[in-house]
């Protein structure tokens, strides 16, 4: 399949278009709202919420008998919300720590959801078909009405986020200050968490309960590496989410037996990996290069200083000194000969005899400047 065909499929093929649009929607919404979760150190809350949503879906079906996406999503939102509330109240009223509270809610709600699912499945009037797609997600089963519901809810969540932009920013970075200004911080917290719950529930049908947490954490973690500004981070995170969603959908459609949810997660993981290593300033490659440059410069400085020290102890400033002498002075730094070569190219040292090195006038100036700077610093 060539690229052109792929593009035309993306627009014309019903299934692929629906799946790609749905994945893009979930990527945008969870990416944008996940930013706040990551910044507020609630990365794993998403994991708990997505697992907690399962019994809500089953209960919504049991109570209404309907499989309309809005009904199931509302059930999921309600259950996810109850789960979050339980985590909060366990944290506030007992000594059980956040990790245990999250893990407990996650596994117990999921277990209860499983009980309900199997309970529904084994009833004689089995009309439950399709409920278990929420476990691992089944993007291929996405219908246009699902995508419409997702887009509607997602737009609502994003608009609310923009409406409370300033408040949420304050809540994420300095809630105490916000409280002192008279903002209802508790209420804002609940609102933001509700938006996160909605974002997670949107993706359950596509990615599934188990992997949805990745779509909350990963886009934001990747975006964090590229910028220090909240606005940019939210935008980038939404973009990464959408990118992973669409490319995951396309890749899995071009290969047989490649489930969409895990493919999307792998795409976003790849984006994270690229961001962690390649992002300017924070990235690992960047950091490694900077460290190397610093270390080299330190060596240059050290040899220059040692030569200066030797020169200042001799009446004759052009008296040469051997590499061995310098090596004993710069104990543990090594590479003296190599560094001397570099200094020679800079024109700061000269070779006055076989294995005899001395500072040039320019090198003398440089060394004096260095020593003065160091004395100033100390």
């Amino acid at each position, binding site marked *: 399949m060539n690229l052109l065909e792929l593009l035309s499929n993306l627009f014309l093929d019903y299934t692929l278009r629906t799946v790609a649009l749905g994945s893009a929607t979930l990527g945008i919404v969870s990416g944008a709202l996940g930013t706040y979760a990551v910044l507020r150190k609630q990365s794993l809350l998403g994991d708990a919420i997505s697992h907690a949503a399962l019994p809500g879906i089953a209960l919504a079906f049991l109570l209404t008998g309907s499989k309309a996406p809005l009904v199931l999503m509302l059930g999921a939102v309600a259950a996810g919300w109850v789960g979050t509330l339980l985590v909060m109240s366990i944290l506030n009223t*007992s000594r059980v720590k956040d990790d245990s509270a999250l893990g407990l809610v996650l596994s*117990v709600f999921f*277990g209860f959801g499983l009980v309900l699912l199997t309970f529904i499945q084994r009833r004689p009037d089995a009309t439950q078909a399709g409920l278990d797609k929420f476990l691992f997600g089944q993007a291929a089963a996405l219908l246009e009405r699902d995508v419409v519901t997702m887009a509607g809810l997602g737009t609502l969540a994003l608009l609310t986020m923009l409406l409370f932009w300033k408040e949420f920013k304050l809540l994420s970075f300095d809630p105490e200050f916000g409280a002192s200004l008279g903002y209802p911080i508790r209420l804002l917290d609940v609102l933001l968490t509700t938006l996160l719950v909605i974002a997670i529930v949107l993706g359950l049908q596509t990615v599934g309960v188990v992997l949805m947490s990745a779509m909350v954490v990963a886009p934001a973690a990747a975006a964090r590496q590229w910028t220090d500004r909240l606005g940019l981070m939210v935008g980038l995170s939404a973009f990464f989410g959408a990118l992973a969603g669409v490319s995951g959908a396309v890749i899995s459609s071009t290969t047989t037996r490649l489930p969409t*949810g895990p493919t999307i997660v792998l795409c976003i993981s790849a984006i994270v990996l690229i961001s962690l290593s390649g992002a300017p300033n*924070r990235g690992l490659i960047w950091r490694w290069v900077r460290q190397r440059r610093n270390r080299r410069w330190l060596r240059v400085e050290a040899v220059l200083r040692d030569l200066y020290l030797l020169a200042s102890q001799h009446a004759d400033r052009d008296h040469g000194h051997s590499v061995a002498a310098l090596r004993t002075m710069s104990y543990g730094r090594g590479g003296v000969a190599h560094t001397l070569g570099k200094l020679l190219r800079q024109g700061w040292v000269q070779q006055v005899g076989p294995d005899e090195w001395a500072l040039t006038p320019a090198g003398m100036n440089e060394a004096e400047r260095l020593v003065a700077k160091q004395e100033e610093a100390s």
Partner: protein
Amino acid sequence: MSLPQIEIQLIAAVVAVACALPGVFLVLRRMALMSDAISHAILLGIVLAFFITRDISSPFLVVAATMTGVVTVGLVELLNRTRLVREDAAIGLVFPALFSIGVILISRFAANVHLDTDAVLLGELAFAPFTRFVVLGYDLGPRALYMMGGILLLNILFILLFYKELKLATFDTGLAAALGFWPGLIHYGLMTLVSVTAVGAFDAVGSILVVALMIGPPATAYMLTDRLPRMIGLSGLVGVASAISGYWLARALDASIAGSMATMAGVLFGLAFLLAPERGLMALARRRARQRWEFAQTMLAIHLFNHEGLPATDKEFRIEHMHEHMRWEPAFTTQVVRQAERRGIVLSRDGYLSLTESGRQSAQQAILN
């Protein structure tokens, strides 16, 4: 009860205790979510090992899957150490990626063998008694029972042997390092244990139940006691209780056994959360209410003490006017006065209050504090 029923409950109980033992230390070390990460990531190890051995019951599978669990922990730490992401985010990044690779490998290359994602994640305890352990033609019982029994034994042995080290590394990592106990080694030992347990339990009960049984019973025990040995013991008991009651719940509803056990673990934690003698919600509320009354009584005593021997004693000590002086609701005041009388802090005579000797002392003490 039929034999398979008893066997299922026996396996469930053994799994519960085997999970609760390392779980205690996970909960205390604030690493509970590592169980979540490990139990998902082992899927990849199981799949990879399966491709090599082509045998789902090979012991190599257990070793490889266990190693994947430990590697997961290492990856999380590596990512955390770059300081580019926080630890919670690191966990949330690593295990979904590994799990996804596992799921994709299964659906691409192993779709038609007995190895599917549902089974790993959800498990089916009801099938556990069907795989028998047969030696020289003798049926010695279900294989899962021996497997989990062995892992339980391993857990018990590890905790007994390294009890002191585990305890020290858990409560004071710095001191453990200073004394030369290598907390890092203990940490990885514990993580290996968690990994082995998760691997052993996955095909009997599924990885989500592993998480529930590793966190639920220890968290419940944590609500009930302050002592490590008691917490370990209680966790085991609560685990067995969740397992057995979960089994019967599943039978009653004709639903997933693993799910029911997780639900029961949650219910038991809920009970402890509400009713625990010292830390439960009820006990907290009761203590707060009692403190409110005691505080009011002390305030009353201080008021009387401050006005003793002053000219306006008459007016200040009249019971009818007491609520005005204390600025309390009249009904509340009446109750406080009655309680203070019963506790021997004040005496009422002819509509007037006076401090008793013990009331005077407690007022003095409260002022000094």
